[in-house]
C-alpha cells in the first residue's frame, strides 16, 4: 500500500513538474534581471513613496525583483519632452499625459510594449483602453485619470457657483489664481468662449487670449504647485486645478469646495510608456506590471488621490476614496469633457507667442521709461562733473 502511494506521489510530482511546460500562463522567469537598474521619470508627488506609513513602491519593487529604480520627476509634459528629445538622459519608464503621448508616438520617441510581460493589464477598465492617442493599445498603460475643476473658498464666494465665469468675476479681483502653463490656462478661456480646445484657427486662439488678457487684472498670480499653499492659507479664494489635488487641499482646509464648470472641462489620462532609448525594456515591463497590480495600484491611488483606471482598486474593500463624488462623479456622463490633442508646431507657436505677450504685459511701463531715462541722465551728469573736476585739478598741477 505504501509503495503504491509512493508511486502515485512520484507520478504526481513528475506530472506537476512537466505540466507547466504546457500551461499557457506559466509565470515567466525574470531572475536574470536581478541586479539591473531602471530609470523612471514621473510627475512630482505622483507615486506612493513611503511617507506617513504608505508603501514605498520603488523599494517594494526592488525587494521583489532585485531591480533598482532610479526615480526622477518632472513638472510639466513639455519639460519631460525636452529631456527625452534632447537625448541626454536615458529613461526606461515615462508617465506623460495623453496629448504628449500622441506626440511621442508620432515622433517615434516611445516604443511598443510587450504585453505578454504585463498580465495585470486585465486590471485596466475597458473605458480607458483604445483611447485616441493609442487606439490599438500598443504603446501605453493608463496610470491615472483626472479632470480639471474649480476650487473655491466658501467663506469668500457667495452662493454655489457652477460656471467658469467665476474666474472672471470682478467681485473677487485679486483673489483668483490661474494656471502657470499655457495649455491649461488657454483651455479655461476656450471653454468660456465656447471654442474647441484643439482648434488650429489662430483667430480662435486670439479670442481666448483676449479673454485671458481681460482676466489678468483680476488674477492674483499664475501658479502651479504653489496653489496648495495659497488656497490652504486662504491667500487666494478661487483657483482652477486638478480634481485629485483638491482632496489634499480640502484635508487641510475645510472651507474649500469644488465644482466642475457646466461649460465643460478638460479630462486627461496619464499613461505609462517605454521610451525608444530604453536600455532595460524587460525590466521596465516588469515595473509596469508591478504598478498596475491590485495592491500596489491601491497604495498609489490612496496616496495620489487621483481617479484610477484600475478595476482591482475600485473593487477593493480597502479603497477609501471609492465613494468620493469628486473623483467618480455620478453624473459623469452629463459632464462635458474633452481631451487635449497634440497641437501642430504652427498652432503651438501661436499659443506660446500669445502666452508670452500675456505674461510680459505689465501695467507700470511708463514709470520704467521715466526711471531709466532719469537714471541715464544722472549717470551722464556725474560723468561730466567728474571729468570737469579732473580737468580743473590737472590745471592746478600745470
Amino acid at each position, binding site marked *: 500500500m505504501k509503495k503504491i502511494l509512493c508511486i502515485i506521489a512520484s507520478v504526481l510530482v513528475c506530472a506537476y513538474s512537466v505540466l507547466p511546460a504546457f500551461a499557457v500562463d506559466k509565470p515567466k522567469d525574470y531572475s536574470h534581471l536581478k541586479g539591473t537598474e531602471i530609470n523612471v521619470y514621473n510627475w512630482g508627488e505622483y507615486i506612493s513613496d513611503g511617507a506617513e506609513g504608505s508603501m514605498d513602491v520603488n523599494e517594494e519593487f526592488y525587494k521583489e525583483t532585485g531591480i533598482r529604480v532610479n526615480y526622477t520627476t518632472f513638472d*510639466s509634459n*513639455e*519639460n519631460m*519632452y*525636452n529631456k527625452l*528629445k534632447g537625448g541626454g538622459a536615458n529613461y526606461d519608464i515615462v508617465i506623460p499625459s495623453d496629448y504628449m503621448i500622441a506626440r511621442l508616438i508620432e515622433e517615434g520617441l516611445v516604443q511598443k510594449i510587450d504585453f505578454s510581460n504585463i498580465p495585470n493589464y486585465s486590471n485596466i477598465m475597458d473605458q480607458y483602453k483604445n483611447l485616441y492617442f493609442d487606439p490599438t493599445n500598443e504603446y501605453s498603460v493608463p496610470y491615472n485619470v483626472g479632470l480639471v475643476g474649480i476650487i473655491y473658498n466658501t467663506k469668500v464666494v457667495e452662493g454655489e457657483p457652477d460656471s467658469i465665469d467665476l474666474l472672471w468675476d470682478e467681485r473677487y479681483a485679486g483673489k483668483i489664481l490661474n494656471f*502657470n*502653463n*499655457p495649455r491649461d490656462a488657454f483651455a479655461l478661456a476656450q471653454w468660456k468662449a465656447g471654442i474647441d480646445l484643439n482648434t488650429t484657427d489662430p483667430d480662435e486662439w486670439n479670442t481666448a487670449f483676449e479673454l485671458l488678457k481681460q482676466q*489678468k487684472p483680476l*488674477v*492674483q*498670480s*499664475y*501658479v502651479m504647485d*504653489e496653489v496648495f*499653499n*495659497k488656497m490652504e*492659507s*486662504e*491667500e487666494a479664494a478661487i483657483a482652477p486645478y486638478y480634481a485629485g489635488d483638491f482632496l489634499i487641499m480640502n484635508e487641510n482646509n475645510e472651507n474649500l469646495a469644488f465644482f466642475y464648470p457646466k461649460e465643460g472641462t478638460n479630462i486627461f489620462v496619464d499613461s505609462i510608456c517605454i521610451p525608444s532609448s530604453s536600455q532595460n525594456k524587460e525590466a521596465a515591463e516588469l515595473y509596469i506590471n508591478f504598478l498596475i497590480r491590485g495592491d500596489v495600484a491601491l497604495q498609489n491611488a490612496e496616496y495620489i488621490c487621483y481617479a484610477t483606471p484600475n478595476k482591482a482598486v475600485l473593487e477593493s474593500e480597502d479603497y477609501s476614496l471609492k465613494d468620493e463624488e469628486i473623483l467618480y462623479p455620478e453624473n459623469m456622463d452629463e459632464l462635458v469633457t474633452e481631451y487635449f490633442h497634440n497641437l501642430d*508646431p504652427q498652432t*503651438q*507657436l501661436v499659443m*506660446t507667442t500669445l*502666452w*508670452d*505677450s500675456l*505674461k*510680459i*504685459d*505689465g*501695467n*507700470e*511701463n511708463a514709470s*520704467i*521709461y521715466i*526711471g*531709466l531715462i532719469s*537714471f541715464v541722465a544722472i*549717470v551722464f551728469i556725474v*560723468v561730466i562733473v*567728474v*571729468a570737469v*573736476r*579732473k580737468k580743473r*585739478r590737472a590745471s592746478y598741477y600745470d
Partner: protein
Amino acid sequence: MNKNSSLRMKLYASPHIVWSAIFIVVPLIMVAYYSFTNADGAFSLENIYRLSDYTTTFLRSLWYGIIATIICFILAYPIAYIISQSKLRIQTTMIMLAMIPMWMNFLIRTYAWMNILEDSGVINKILTTIGLEPVHMINTPGAVILGMVYNFLPYMILPIYSVMTKLDKNLVEAAQDLGAGKVSVFAKVVFPMSVPGIVSGITMVFVPSVSTFYISQKLGGGTFALIGDVIEMQFQISNNFHFGAALSLVLMILILICMAFMNRFSSNEDVGGGMVI
C-alpha cells in the same frame, strides 16, 4: 631656458584652456548659432525680428536690476565698512552672519519670502494683531526687488569688505596728519580706494538681478515677466531653443555694454582719486 619655461607654463595652463574652451567658448558659439537659425537649421533672422516685441521686458529687467543694485550698494557699503573697522574676532563672526543665509538654497529662501509677504503672511498677521491696516506687498515690483536685494546682498558685501581690509592704514594716517577731517579722509582716501571692490560687487549683483527668473515668478506672481522668465519659458514650455538663444544673446550683449561702461567709468575715478599713489 627661457623658451623652455614658457613652454612649461603653457603646458600647465592647458587644462584650464581646454576647460574654458569646452564649457565657455563652445556654449557661447552654440548660443550664437541657435540665435541665427530656425527649427530646420537654416539661417534666419526671424528670431531677431521677434525681439522687438520684448523691448519693454528688457527695459523692465534692466530697471529692476539697477534699482536692486543701488539698494544693495547703499546697504552693503556701510556694513562692509563697519565690519572692516571692528576687531578681528568680531569681523569673522559678522562675515559668517552675512554668509549664513547663503548656506540655504536660494529657491527655498525665495519661497520663504512668499510666505512672509503674502496678504495672509507673517508681516500682515502681525500688523493686524497690533491693530494696523494690512499692507499689500506680494506680487508687486517692490516685492521682486526686495527678493533680489535679499538674495544678492552678500555678493556686494564680500568684495567691498575684502578691499577694505586690505586698505593701508598708513594712508589714512597720512591724510589725517595733513589735516584732513573725517569726511575728507573718507571721500578722498577710503572711498576711492574701495572702488575696485564696489565695481566687482556691482557686477556680481547686477548681472544675476537682470537675468533672474525665479524671484519674479514667486514674488511677482508671474503677472509681469522679466527677461529671465521669458527665456525660461522658451526652453521649458515653448520648446523654442532658437528664440530663447536669441533672447539670451541680446541679454548678454546688454550686460556686456553696461559692464564695459562701468569699468570705463570706474577707471576714470581711480585716476582722479588716491589710486595713483
